[in-house]
């Protein structure tokens, strides 16, 4: 294989592939007229986003924190005051900026991971537990959106799937008395099924009529929202018995997710305020399941093939339409798990039509930040949970508007979605040119470098 002298094919091919790559900018080339009729719009964007490396993700987060620091400083009253007499005492401004930014990020840390101002491990670790609570539905819904991404689809319908999942899970939770454990498991399955059915609508429509899933899922968000809102205002449907406000009944005790604090007291430990519940465990299970699906299962293999190249998948005899449908079912089920978590873990005393709490859309962000990889989504869900948990502390301790936290989240994703921008900021080489560096003579001789 390394014999350059006789292996003419091996020797000639690197140049061949080189020139074929160059051909793309040759004026003699026509754009490929036979584009895939089924290729989802934005497929290339998805691929670009998913192919970025971990380094890029971390740098995007760093960049977002820097941008947020500027905003924090600019909105801080102390900084604004010091800027007023900048030319008299410039140092005041820098001190004020430092105080504002460092104070903000310290309180963010304090509110999301470790509260060093308290004593006792169990109390100090409480913020981390709160982060996990916030992260639980984000991870589940993020996995759902990521799964659709991997199959080449934009599932913008997280909100609708979550609402339907929550409604089904809630309805089971308050209607049917069941023994412990069984009760919340059945209610959770109900949430999965609800979300799956709602996702399946978009999948079936795409497969049978070619309707674009982005439009369908966006519209289904409205349908789900107003449908549940209607149910919540109607006695006999979702409204709590005898209530005048649009709120559902509370869950039966057995149907709520056990909290970690309950577990600790049940085992004879001290009282804690840990709200993290069994739902987090289910999110971990879901992450492992999605990992297994894509890395080990034949279904996931077909999912990936369709996501990367639907034409080749079709030519290889894969039923692309069925894959689209099945993927939306799985995707909706995972988002439905987040809905179940909302109803069974967070708002257990009855929910209103705001049960989604923005998670359906944040899930898209989580999936993008996690680059649609299961464990990537898991950790980006944790990060967003931390930002949420810490955001409240930032607001309470440093009077930083909670909106700034949203800005950080948005800016992170903005940088994630624009890898060339981050590369430019940090002067990273392009993916193509890093490959070229690795074009060692030996590799060229082997004929495997493009």
């Amino acid at each position, binding site marked *: 294989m390394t014999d350059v002298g006789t292996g003419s094919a091996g020797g000639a091919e690197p140049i061949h592939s080189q020139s074929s790559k160059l051909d793309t900018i040759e004026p003699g080339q026509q754009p490929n007229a036979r584009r895939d009729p089924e290729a989802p719009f934005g497929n290339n964007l998805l691929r670009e986003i998913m192919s970025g490396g971990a380094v890029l993700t971390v740098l995007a987060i760093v960049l977002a924190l820097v941008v947020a620091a500027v905003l924090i400083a600019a909105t801080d009253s102390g900084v604004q005051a010091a800027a007023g007499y900048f030319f008299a005492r410039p140092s005041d401004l820098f001190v004020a900026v430092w105080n504002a930014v460092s104070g903000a990020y310290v309180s963010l840390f304090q509110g999301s991971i470790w509260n060093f101002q308290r004593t006792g491990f169990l109390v100090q670790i409480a913020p981390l537990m709160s982060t996990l609570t916030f992260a639980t539905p984000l991870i589940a819904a993020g996995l759902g959106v990521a799964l659709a991404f991997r199959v080449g689809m934009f599932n913008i319908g997280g909100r609708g799937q979550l609402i339907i999942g929550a409604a089904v899970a809630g309805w089971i939770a308050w209607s049917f008395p069941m023994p412990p454990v069984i009760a919340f498991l059945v209610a959770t399955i109900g949430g999965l099924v609800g979300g799956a059915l709602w996702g399946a609508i978009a999948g079936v429509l795409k497969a049978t009529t070619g309707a674009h899933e982005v439009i369908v899922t966006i519209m289904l968000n409205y349908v789900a929202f107003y449908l549940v809102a209607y149910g919540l205002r109607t006695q006999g449907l979702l409204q709590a018995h005898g209530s005048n406000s649009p709120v559902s009944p509370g869950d039966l005790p057995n149907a709520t997710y056990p909290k970690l604090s309950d577990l600790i007291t049940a085992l004879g430990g001290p009282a804690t305020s840990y709200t993290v519940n069994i739902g987090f465990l289910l999110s971990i299970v879901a992450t492992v399941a999605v990992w297994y699906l894509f890395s080990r299962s034949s279904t996931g293999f077909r999912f990936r093939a369709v996501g*990367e*190249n639907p034409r080749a998948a079709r*030519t*290889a*005899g894969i*039923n692309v339409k069925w894959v689209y449908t099945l993927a939306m079912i799985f995707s909706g089920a995972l988002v439905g798990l987040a809905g179940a978590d909302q109803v069974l873990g967070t708002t257990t005393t009855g929910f209103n039509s705001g049960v989604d709490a923005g998670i359906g859309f944040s899930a898209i962000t989580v999936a993008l930040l996690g680059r649609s990889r299961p464990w990537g989504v898991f950790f980006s869900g944790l990060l967003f949970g931390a930002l949420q948990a810490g955001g409240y502390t930032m607001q309470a301790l440093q009077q930083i508007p909670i909106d700034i936290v949203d800005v950080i989240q948005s800016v992170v994703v903005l940088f994630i979605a624009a890898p060339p921008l981050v590369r430019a900021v940090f002067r990273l080489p392009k993916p193509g040119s890093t490959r*070229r*560096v690795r074009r060692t003579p030996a590799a060229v001789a082997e004929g*495997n470098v493009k």
Partner: protein
Amino acid sequence: MKLELRGITKRFGALTANDHIDLTVEPGEIHCLLGENGAGKSTLMNVLYGLYQADEGEILLDDDVQHFSGPGDAMNAGIGMVHQHFMLIPVFTVAENVMLGHEPTRLGGRLDLAAARAKVREISERFGFDVDPDAVVEELPVGVQQRVEIIKALSRDAKVLVFDEPTAVLTPQETDELMAIMRQLRDTGVAIVFITHKLREVREVADRITVIRLGKVVGEAQPTASNAELASMMVGRAVDLSIHKDPPKIGAEAFVVHDLTVIDAADQVVVSHVGFTVHAGEVLAIAGVQGNGQTELVEAILGVQNRVEGSIRLDGRELLGRSVGGVLDAGVGFVPEDRTDDGLVAEFTIAENLMLDRSTGAPFVRGGTLQLTELERFAEEKIAEFDIRAQGVTTHVGRLSGGNQQKVVLARELSRELRLLVVSQPTRGLDVGSIEFVHTRIVQTRDSGIPVVVVSTELDEVVTLADRIAVMYRGSIVGIVPGDTSREVLGLMMAGEKPAEVAA
């Protein structure tokens, strides 16, 4: 005008696409630039045309050093290029296309279409092109469109004309006409650079031949040189152009297509009442110029086309109406014409691509779980068997050269239990070494008693592989002739004519 390239060097990263290339083209000569795909011909011409800047070396026109920062400069200096893919706007007329980019205007910026028309007419008459300036380009045959390209270049007073693989889209007859035009242009003193990898054309038209391999000039050849001599210069070793092929051992009727009609999404009849039979142990080649229904015919066999009438029977079982998976399960091996779009998932590894159409059941899936160890073993085996040059089974297919990609596709299809092999454009864009390999495997498949359908637009390939040849023209089969039919007859058939000696 004399064109001279001195020591042109162009590097892309660590790769040198052109390495100190010297080339002189005298006025009134046709100079052939011969080399395999990827030898660096196109890069060199892009340097000449100002699309790339050379890292070293210089371009001289009549001994004056030129500096081109873009195609505009090159055009102004008198260099014209006829691209392989035409640079024409389909909905514009010939005159509009010709004036595009340097539109003559009258007072107030109004387009002077009359001047453009006159120019087209004048050039057309001078060379006997017979091109109507008011014809809409998309309605013209491919050969005429190419003439529009030539007129475009000549209308800018090109003294050096570069033809980049101009014959790829032409029928043999159109190719002959093009060569006549090239000779005519030569006789008026134009310097012509003719880029190609087709040996026959080179020998027919070239005054001088320069062979390029791996970015370097490996020497000049005489037009009197034999095909084998030219090929071995191009490849760098002795090449046996005619692969060894025993007479076919024809078996029973295996694959029968009867009265097949395909209607496409635009309601056009793209395949019309096509019928043929392939026997076990036989290669039937479907020849024809690109775009005469071959693609749709193959898609119909695979089950991708929706509106198909007629019947497709393999070993007596009807394939029509089955899903793609059903057709593959019936034992059809399929090598698509566009391997990057239809044959492979570029982001997948070699191993994953090798199991692409076997993602259900044994041997690679058990209980819904991928058998990664088994897959890896299988992939290692196929990489060795098919001589796929790659670092390992986990190399992404998108990083392989065209030849190695095609070997992956072949390895996948040939390692299934086949009852029929359908190969579309088996060697498009491949180097000579890979072509040999692919052809040999196809013949081996035939010899193992499997019926083979080869669809190809390359006449050389058709003649090499076929036991019988079906020629398609405008969606119909013009005729089915023996494998040893002369090129002239085949060429006429590709243009839709049915020579008298061809039986119905």
